[in-house]
């Protein structure tokens, strides 16, 4: 039965595209997720996806290429949000809420005044595997590879920055640069991922695999590897469920992620319990 499904999926070019882009986006988001979750920036993904939605609405109204508007806007917002320090006029979480809600409102306003709610808008909100044409696919693949390469090159510095920002600064690391690197990578990942996953669900690709991995392993490199594996496996499983049950793809992937997270949390709790009994 699985083989039939696989054959069926790979007979559609748009599904092959969806698989390639989906796996790459899952990989990117899971790598960045560990740093964002550990630095308590989990909600930034959620905020940025709404910013992306607003930007895509503007692009649609102006007949501009979606990525050319959404990428720069998201990068600016990501840098702004990640660089907010304690003691700013508006606290970090509140700032995310403000940026996120206003972009969503702005996007909806522009849409209702121009084309009205149509399938395009619906797809941006909830995602669609049909959204990607072959030109989009090439861009997504190229961008994902760049993101992964930059992440690997900065891996050690991102670790230092995530684990102890003050120490990193004291030893001469320009931490401002790394918060910008992290912000830009996150923004771009969200923009390329949201068309398939939907603005409402893309941030879960960042948060869930990292949270699951943190419960399974306790050293950094292993957490990163597990996070990437969990993310890709959940994506593939979600796609199969979506295909077989004719369910929305974004929601299917998130539900698989949630299930894996719950199982990992139980396993972690049981292991801790046994560890305490022994000690």
């Amino acid at each position, binding site marked *: 039965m699985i083989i039939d499904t696989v054959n069926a999926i790979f007979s559609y070019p748009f599904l092959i595209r969806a698989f390639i882009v989906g796996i790459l986006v899952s990989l990117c988001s899971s790598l960045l997720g560990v740093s964002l979750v*550990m630095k308590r920036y989990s909600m930034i993904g959620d905020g940025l996806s709404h910013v992306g939605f607003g930007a895509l609405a503007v692009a649609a109204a102006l007949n501009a290429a979606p990525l050319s508007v959404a990428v720069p806007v998201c990068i600016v917002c990501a840098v702004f949000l990640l660089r907010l320090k304690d003691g700013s006029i508006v606290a970090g979480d509140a700032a995310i809420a403000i940026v996120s809600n206003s972009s969503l409102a702005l996007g909806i306003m522009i849409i209702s005044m121009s084309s009205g709610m149509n399938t395009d808008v619906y797809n941006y909100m909830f995602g669609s595997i049909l959204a990607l044409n072959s030109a989009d696919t090439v861009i997504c693949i190229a961008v994902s590879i760049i993101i992964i390469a930059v992440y690997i090159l900065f891996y050690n510095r991102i670790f230092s920055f995530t684990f102890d920002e003050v*120490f990193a600064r*004291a*030893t001469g690391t320009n931490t401002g640069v790394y918060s910008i690197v992290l912000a830009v990578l996150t923004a771009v990942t969200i923009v390329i991922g949201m068309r398939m996953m939907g603005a409402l669900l893309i941030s879960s690709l960042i948060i869930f695999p990292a949270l699951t*991995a943190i419960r399974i392993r306790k050293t*950094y490199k292993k957490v990163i590897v597990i996070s990437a594996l969990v993310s890709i496996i959940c994506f593939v499983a979600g796609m199969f469920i979506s295909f077989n049950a004719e369910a929305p793809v974004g929601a299917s992937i998130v539900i698989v992620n949630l299930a894996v997270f719950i199982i990992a949390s139980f396993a972690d709790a049981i292991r801790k319990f046994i560890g305490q009994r022994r000690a």
Partner: protein
Amino acid sequence: MALISCEKATFGYDGEIVLSDIDFSLYGGEYMCILGENGAGKSTLVKGLLKLINPISGTVNIGEGLKAHEMGYMPQQTAIQKNFPASVFEVVLSGRINSMGLRPFYSQKDKDEAHEKIKLMGMKEYEKKSYQELSGGQKQRVLLARALCAAGKLMLLDEPTAGLDPVATGDLYELIKNINSNMNMTVIMVSHDVHAALKYASHILHLSHRQLFFGTAEDYIKSGIGKEFMEGGTGYDY
């Protein structure tokens, strides 16, 4: 020339002065404790010495070929670190970040250095263990090893014994003293513990929004401010 010195330095945030009249010099191999009540400006001074903040007036000078990013800093633990998934080796190795230059990855020399410092702190068997599963004293040893990896000639320790039990506190003080005498490492330590400070340090800097005392530990015991602070019994106030 002194390894590190301040001349009439004033520090603060957003133009508001927190600490003024800081004037001291420390030479290679010396061990200085920064004493003072909570909020006296101890951590502010450490940030100033690390060049994380600039003095509002006066100067902070470093000499003897020491570079700003070659100070081994041991900050107080943050909430993020308590549950951070990282192995002891990964944490200690990150202390070598300042010797990477433009290289993206650590060299074998960096890794050897990290192994060596872990061994020096008696944490060899925990090298692959997760940092979050260690005891308080073990965590501090790991952060000390990381600071050693970054340190050329000077270490700055911000209340390294905070939250430790008396045995772990004593062990850590001995380790720091050994680093100071065996490796000729200059140590600057922020502390609450005046008795330990007088036992181990060669110099004392006492702050209360300004510099109340700077000199050798012997002179501090004889001074009025020293007597008063010791009788105050502020050995542990947490």
